[in-house]
């Protein structure tokens, strides 16, 4: 009997409601006091096409998927066929064999199938397809021991606005599911959940945490153009910002979005945009403008699988080079990347402060497997949020003729006035200019102005989010990663530890300016360094190598099929290198 540790896969065809039900299950687990991570795998189409929602729950937090699925709720044969290989020996499948027949390819001797005539029961419940989902929830709940009150409460809440009848129908569906299990199966599922105190925790999606962080940090303007997986942020801000005096523009394209973001920031409002690869590509020119105008903006990049349209709903870490290096000419810029939903909030706040304090564009780099995933986390501390507007002049006190917008300073940052401030008028040009903003091509001024701007990269060092170091600092086995790989790599560490292998893990949170010192120090003592990243060309690894050189013990662990790492895949790569690894660190 496995207690309080489960990974459920809920799958069918896009548009059939699996995602909604998945959300509900996640919330049930959370309310039962468990730590939750969810992952959505859906196609780039509206209806049809295999989709699945994986919910992982346990007593320990995990910021990523486990290797194996314990319980699968499959609404079609395709789902079973696609995922049967991922099942844990001893796990089970809930399937309605009366609709499609399970093929041999969809069976495994060590995986039990609970055959439940969902369609049939649904028909009896007078319901729609969605009721079928709710019945399956009852089945699953009964098998693994979901708290019935919590389930009923959440279902009621979910359907409340549709009227009492719909609520009753769905509660009935739950009961029908539960009943069917009790009446037809006495085989225990092998899993048992036990509710614990929920505590003051949240279950939040990465993108929501970013929106919330922005609002907390004082962002009151957002411009964006819909694109998966970034649209959530635009929609979150549109829903919430107006109440706090802010506004959100759906632009005609990303070129407009980035230039609007710059316009609002130029006018003195904390402003951001959010996009993904293709939109990011279109923003390339605008980012350079923000750099030379020294206008603070925050650009959220929710990476997905490229190149080009690629796989719009799939995850990847292949935009790292792009956010760091794209753009003609050279500007100081910052790239920071959270590794968890909680960090998504705090680093968003940091992004706005860095942007305004150093008057630079700041990228917040996230990815589908994090930004569209939900995690449990403690309440976010608004008390920990400080708003540092840097050298912003909003209330006058400058004298026209003396004031110089781009004054040469030691830290490279100059007093910044915004339209409306008396005496602060100046030209803000994308062309090279002198300290007063007058366009000039003078060679000496040019070199000085480049120096001034780039100097910020040094000035900001102390303010940049430091990397997180996990594990034993003296260990010989080392990992470096960023973003969503925070979860799987930590889990690999746990497994290694459990067989007595010490390791250390540097989760980079600032990617640019590259934390050279931290990386060099980290790599120095290590015997083997595994650089884990979701791309084909080893973008992070190249950044590291430029600092460490082609250390023979630097090993790339890469995945680029649009799916996030499972711990076992990383372990595999480790095992292949380290013949000496103790047995017993297999997938689990």
């Amino acid at each position, binding site marked *: 009997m496995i207690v309080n540790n489960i990974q459920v896969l809920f799958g069918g065809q896009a548009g059939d409601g699996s995602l909604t039900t998945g959300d509900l299950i996640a919330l049930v687990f959370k309310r039962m006091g468990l730590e939750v991570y969810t992952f959505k795998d859906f196609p780039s189409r509206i209806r049809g096409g295999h989709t699945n929602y994986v919910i992982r729950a346990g007593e320990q937090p995990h910021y990523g998927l486990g290797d194996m699925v314990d319980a699968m709720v499959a609404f079609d044969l395709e789902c079973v066929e696609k995922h049967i290989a991922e099942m844990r020996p001893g796990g089970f499948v809930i399937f309605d064999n009366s609709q499609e027949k399970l093929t041999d390819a969809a069976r495994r001797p060590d995986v039990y199938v609970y055959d439940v005539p969902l369609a049939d029961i649904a028909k009896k419940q007078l319901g729609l397809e969605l009721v079928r989902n709710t019945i399956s929830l009852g089945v699953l709940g009964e098998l693994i021991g979901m708290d019935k009150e919590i389930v009923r409460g959440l279902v009621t809440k979910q359907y409340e606005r549709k009227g009492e009848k719909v609520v009753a129908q769905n509660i009935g569906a739950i009961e029908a599911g539960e009943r069917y299990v009790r009446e037809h199966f006495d085989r225990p599922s092998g899993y048992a959940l036990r509710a614990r105190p929920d505590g003051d925790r949240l279950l939040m999606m990465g993108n929501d945490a970013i929106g919330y962080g922005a609002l907390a940090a004082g962002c009151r303007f957002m411009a964006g153009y819909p694109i998966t997986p970034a649209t959530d942020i635009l929609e979150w801000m549109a829903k919430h910002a107006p109440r706090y005096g802010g506004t959100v523009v759906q632009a005609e394209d990303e070129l407009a979005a980035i230039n609007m973001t*710059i*316009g609002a920031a130029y006018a003195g409002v904390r402003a951001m945009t959010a996009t993904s690869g293709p939109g990011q590509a279109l923003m390339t020119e605008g980012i350079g403008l923000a750099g030379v105008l020294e206008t603070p903006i925050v650009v959220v990049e929710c990476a997905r699988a490229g190149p080009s349209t690629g796989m719009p709903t799939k995850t990847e870490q292949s935009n790292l080079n792009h956010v760091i290096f794209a753009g003609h000419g050279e500007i100081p810029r910052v790239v920071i990347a959270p590794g968890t939903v909680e960090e998504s909030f705090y680093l968003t706040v940091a992004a706005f402060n860095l942007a305004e304090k150093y008057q630079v564009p700041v990228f917040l780099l996230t990815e589908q497997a994090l930004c569209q995933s939900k995690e449990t986390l403690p309440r976010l501390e608004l008390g920990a949020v400080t708003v540092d507007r840097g050298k912003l002049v909003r209330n006058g006190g400058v004298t026209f003729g003396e004031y110089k917008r781009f004054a040469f300073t030691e830290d490279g940052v100059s007093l910044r006035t915004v339209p409306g401030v008396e005496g602060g008028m100046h030209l803000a040009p994308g062309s090279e200019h002198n300290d007063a903003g007058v366009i000039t091509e003078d060679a000496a001024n040019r070199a000085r102005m480049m120096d001034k701007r780039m100097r910020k990269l040094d000035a900001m060092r102390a303010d940049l989010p430091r990397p997180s170091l996990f594990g034993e600092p003296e260990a010989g086995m080392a990992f470096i990663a960023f973003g969503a790989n925070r979860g799987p790599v930590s889990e690999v560490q746990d497994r290694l530890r459990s067989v007595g292998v010490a390791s250390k893990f540097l989760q980079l949170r600032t990617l640019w300016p590259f934390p050279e010192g931290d990386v060099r120090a980290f790599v120095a003592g290590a015997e083997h360094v595994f650089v884990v990243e979701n791309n084909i060309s080893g973008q992070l690894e190249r950044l590291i190598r430029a600092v460490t050189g082609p250390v023979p013990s630097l090993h790339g662990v890469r995945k680029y099929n649009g799916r996030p790492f499972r711990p076992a895949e990383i372990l595999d790569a480790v095992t292949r290198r380290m013949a000496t690894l103790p047995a017993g660190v297999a997938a689990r």
Partner: protein
Amino acid sequence: MATTLTPKDFATATPSWWCAGCGDFGVLAALKQACAELGLEPHKVAFISGIGCSGKISGYLHSYAFHGVHGRALPTATAVKLANTDLTVIVAGGDGDGYAIGAGHFIHAVRRNPDMTYIVMDNQTYGLTKGQSSPTSMLGYKAGPHPQGNPDAPINGLAIALAAGATFIARAFSSEPKQMAEMIKEAVRHPGFGIVEVLSPCVTFNKVNTYKWFKENVYHLDDLPGYDVRDRVRAFATLTQPGKIPLGIFYREIRPTLEELMLGTGRPPIASLPIETVDPGLAALQDAYA
């Protein structure tokens, strides 16, 4: 507010980079005149310009001037206005900036109807890059990339604006700065998006559409009997009539501005909001995730 302003109050110390005789001088003069007569305060004017000879104008108007990238002045300006509705927002740029690379934004600025003024300085060529065809160059216009003559029919920016739902449409001529100043004033006063296209000859590269050519090829709407600026269809007919080029105010209509629809009225500018301390009300938003 200063009680009596003169155009000089809007001058900068920066010497202009235009060729002697360039039509853009007339635009700058008219613009300063209009600003003075409207009694605008320089620090409350946000002046956003495109890239081109025309775009350099932002360096010569004493104001908060913003010289962004090629073709993107309108989205920038739209956001500046939303960010601070207390500002008078004026945009200027060339025919290439506005009708070629910026054509998409042009349509969308028009339809959104933010309260701002857009001056298109039309010289029917790309001045700054040395005389290539622009979207308003005539068919057959000879230029570097078109040694056999421009094969692309010129576009009519004002007719497109009308079709896209513009609420104020006018055309001026750089040699008639007084009338131009009047039109700019009207456009600034107009509560919504006002576009003033200005025929502004490029004396260096465009040897076809010269001052002389324009003088022979323009006429004034004022001379059309019974012209009604509220008649959209008439405006279209007038704008698209082949032959001489009409000058004047073509169309005018009042509909809600973008700011009204997005922000409502009577609220403080977003840029003035105190954000230094986190609104404690924000904490409650977390409850939805508990």
